[in-house]
């Protein structure tokens, strides 16, 4: 049975020549799990919004969309509201009311159900999603993952036939994200609901999807089962290969005639099959013999920091210490709620530890005057780029932070470096998420810091943008960077040193390679896939290199 049928759909936004969607043809069967991927700006979200009438953007449109054989436009509002569910990206903004129970009932209230029906369905949903424990809570008390689960549950309460998710996990931490994606899979398997999802954590959705659609510049460039899509992309030599799950990237990087692996498990057996009859010539990569971290000149030195938010609260930092060598990119990883962000805040003086000391560039932080500290010395890039924006255009945003006589030229140079030049006259809220992140970075860098602190910088970025972001960071010479992150893959690729933060303090520190090859759970997929063969392969490139040498 066909659910959605999209025929020759083209669309362009008002005041824009460029086609946001270009002749899209796609048929979606009932009960299918479809993942749409593509780099940001490829038209994924625009396509999804066309499947939900109330939020379809206005503009020039040709072609048609059929739902259950009838044109979607003719469907009445009420039927479409219940039949097509839509989960958006930001967990916070979708929530309407202040109580969890009210939020669950909101859709059903809109449909005009009577009290008893609503009561039953709300009870059903709360039980199915395990919400009963926080049923009476205020939504503000929930974590990001819980909020997104609540959004999902309140849509599922209307019993939709199709569930559309627009990058639902981009704002969540990895654990909450994989919980969420598992719930989606469960809905698909147990209720037979059709799933149409855009996602950049392909690692977790690729194997679960029935079909994958790849978009570029508003066109569908590949569509089919996960494995065939990989083939197709490889054949086109498309850049999207870099976004595929690690095992597939390694597979295409090595070039093998065996079956293509998708999950880490398949990847392990693929490595086994490929290298089983060969004696390994080399099983480890050379370690750069780095100096002992404690002997280098520190840019940031924090010793035994203790901090709590209120007098009667528990300690958040329990004797946390760190030494960040000058010029290095230092990453702190660790789970949610371990105090990583607080640690970062106390290093830049936003939180004041009640015990311990922080030295910035060899000088105690309490000895700095505020302007001295933040002018040409220390800067913090916040998690949410939007919290930095106060002006009307990108140019004004940047000018606000630049100082001195060369203001204009500084701004232009920075814009050039962060590829913002064509965007200078746009409003910071009118540009895409990735562009906002670049603007925020440029703004912070214009304060010319010697030390840059970053809180969760790669949140919500797709793989391409991460590469670009890393490139910008690499080009910043003489800047010490300390970042806290959940993004293991990013840290493994680009960080010089990695520390594990747990229970209010740093547990262990090492170079990225030693750190990740020493861990067995908290490590990259490339490492998990290859650790039985190679001693210290951490990134895809490492595994590919070692495979090639051994073949």
């Amino acid at each position, binding site marked *: 049975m066909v659910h959605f049928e999209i025929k020759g759909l083209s669309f362009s936004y008002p005041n824009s020549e460029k086609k946001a969607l270009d002749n899209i043809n796609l048929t979606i069967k009932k009960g299918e799990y479809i993942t749409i991927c593509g780099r940001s700006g490829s038209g994924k979200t625009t396509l999804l919004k066309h499947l939900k009438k109330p939020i379809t953007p*206005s503009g020039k449109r040709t072609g048609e969309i059929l739902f259950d054989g009838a044109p979607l436009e003719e469907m009445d509002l009420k039927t479409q509201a219940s039949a097509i569910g839509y989960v958006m990206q930001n967990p916070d903004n979708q929530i309407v009311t202040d109580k969890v129970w009210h939020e669950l009932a909101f859709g059903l209230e809109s449909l005009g159900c009577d009290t008893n029906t609503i009561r039953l369905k709300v009870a059903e949903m709360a039980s199915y999603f395990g919400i009963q424990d926080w049923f009476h809570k205020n939504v503000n008390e929930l974590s990001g993952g819980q909020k997104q689960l609540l959004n999902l549950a309140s849509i599922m309460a209307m019993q939709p036939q199709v569930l559309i998710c627009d990058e639902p996990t981009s704002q969540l931490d990895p654990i909450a994200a994989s919980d969420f994606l598992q719930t989606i899979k469960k809905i698909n398997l147990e209720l037979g609901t059709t799933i149409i999802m855009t996602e950049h954590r392909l690692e977790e959705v690729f194997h679960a999807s029935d079909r994958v659609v790849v978009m570029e510049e508003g066109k569908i460039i590949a569509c089919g089962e996960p494995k065939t899509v990989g083939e197709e992309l490889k054949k086109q030599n498309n850049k999207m290969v870099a976004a595929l799950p690690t095992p597939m990237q390694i597979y295409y990087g090595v070039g093998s005639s065996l079956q293509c692996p998708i999950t880490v498990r398949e990847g392990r057996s693929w490595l086994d099959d490929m290298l089983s009859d060969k004696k390994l010539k080399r099983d480890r990569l050379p370690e750069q013999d780095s100096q002992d971290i404690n002997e280098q000149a520190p840019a940031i030195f924090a010793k035994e920091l203790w901090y709590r938010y209120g007098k009667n609260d528990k300690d958040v930092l329990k004797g946390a210490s760190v030494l960040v060598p000058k010029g290095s990119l230092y990453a702190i990883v660790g789970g949610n709620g371990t105090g990583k962000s607080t640690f970062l805040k106390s290093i830049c003086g936003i939180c004041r530890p009640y015990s311990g000391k922080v030295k910035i560039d060899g000088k105690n932080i309490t000895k700095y005057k505020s302007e001295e500290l933040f002018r040409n010395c220390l800067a913090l890039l916040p998690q949410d780029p939007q919290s930095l924006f106060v002006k*009307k255009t990108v140019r004004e945003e940047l000018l606000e932070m630049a100082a001195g006589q060369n203001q204009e030229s500084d701004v232009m140079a920075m814009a050039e470096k962060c590829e913002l030049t064509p965007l200078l006259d746009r*409003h910071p809220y*009118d540009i895409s998420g990735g562009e906002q992140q670049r603007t925020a970075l440029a703004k912070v860098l214009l304060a010319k810091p010697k030390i840059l602190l970053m809180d969760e910088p790669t949140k919500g970025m797709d793989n391409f943008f991460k590469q670009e972001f890393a490139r910008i960071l690499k080009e910043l010479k003489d800047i010490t960077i300390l970042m806290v992150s959940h993004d293991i893959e990013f840290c493994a690729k680009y960080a010089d040193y990695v520390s594990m933060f747990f229970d209010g303090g740093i547990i262990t520190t090492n170079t990225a390679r030693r750190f990740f090859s020493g861990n067995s759970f908290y490590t990259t997929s490339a490492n998990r896939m290859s650790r039985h063969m190679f001693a210290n392969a951490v990134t895809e490139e490492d595994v590919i290199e070692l495979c090639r040498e051994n073949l």
Partner: protein
Amino acid sequence: MQGKSLKRTVVYTAMIVLAVLVLIIFWKFGNRNHYVFGTLLVICGMLPVICGFEKKRSQAREIVLISVMSALAIVSRMAFAIVPHFKPMAGIIMITGMAFGPTAGFISGMISLLISNFAFAQGPWTPWQMFAFGIAGFVAGLLYDKGIINEKKRIVTAIIGGIIVVLFVGPIMDTSTFFLADGMMGDVTPWAIYLSGLPVNAVHAAATVVTLFLLCPPMLERINRIKVKYEI
């Protein structure tokens, strides 16, 4: 649908008639309790706006925008309590009235006071405050529609905002004080109360002038951008 809206109209009319009846009864037999009488009058004053707003089928965006502006007013009251002479609530409510029309201004005034009083305390003054700030939003909206105040006349707008506080917000709240005091003491002259309220009102008005002077142009500009962008 027709039936429901008809039913609602009937209910509202009945409510208003009932309120007036209760008013008369209280006036006749209520020991001339001015406070109760006045409060009922104030509530009757708010009813038509609420009824009108309920009867109209409101768009999702309209409801959200009113909520957003009310929340901004409340948050700014709480967050900037430390900044001296900066009482932004009345100012932001007036900006709401200017940007989204008199009714929206009135409703956001009422809601802001009702909810911010949860943080402080509800008391006999709640309905009066709701009404006073509602009127402030309403009047600002009317003046804006007439073109008397707008974001270009920065100083005029700020001063008129101050005048609205002195003419409407202050006196309405003083009236409640008067009625309460009158009920308590008996024989209190209204002028004494209004005069004693003047310094407080003047400070409030000055704070509103400052708020509007600082915030009115940038906030309206940002609201207008949203209006253009999303075709509201």
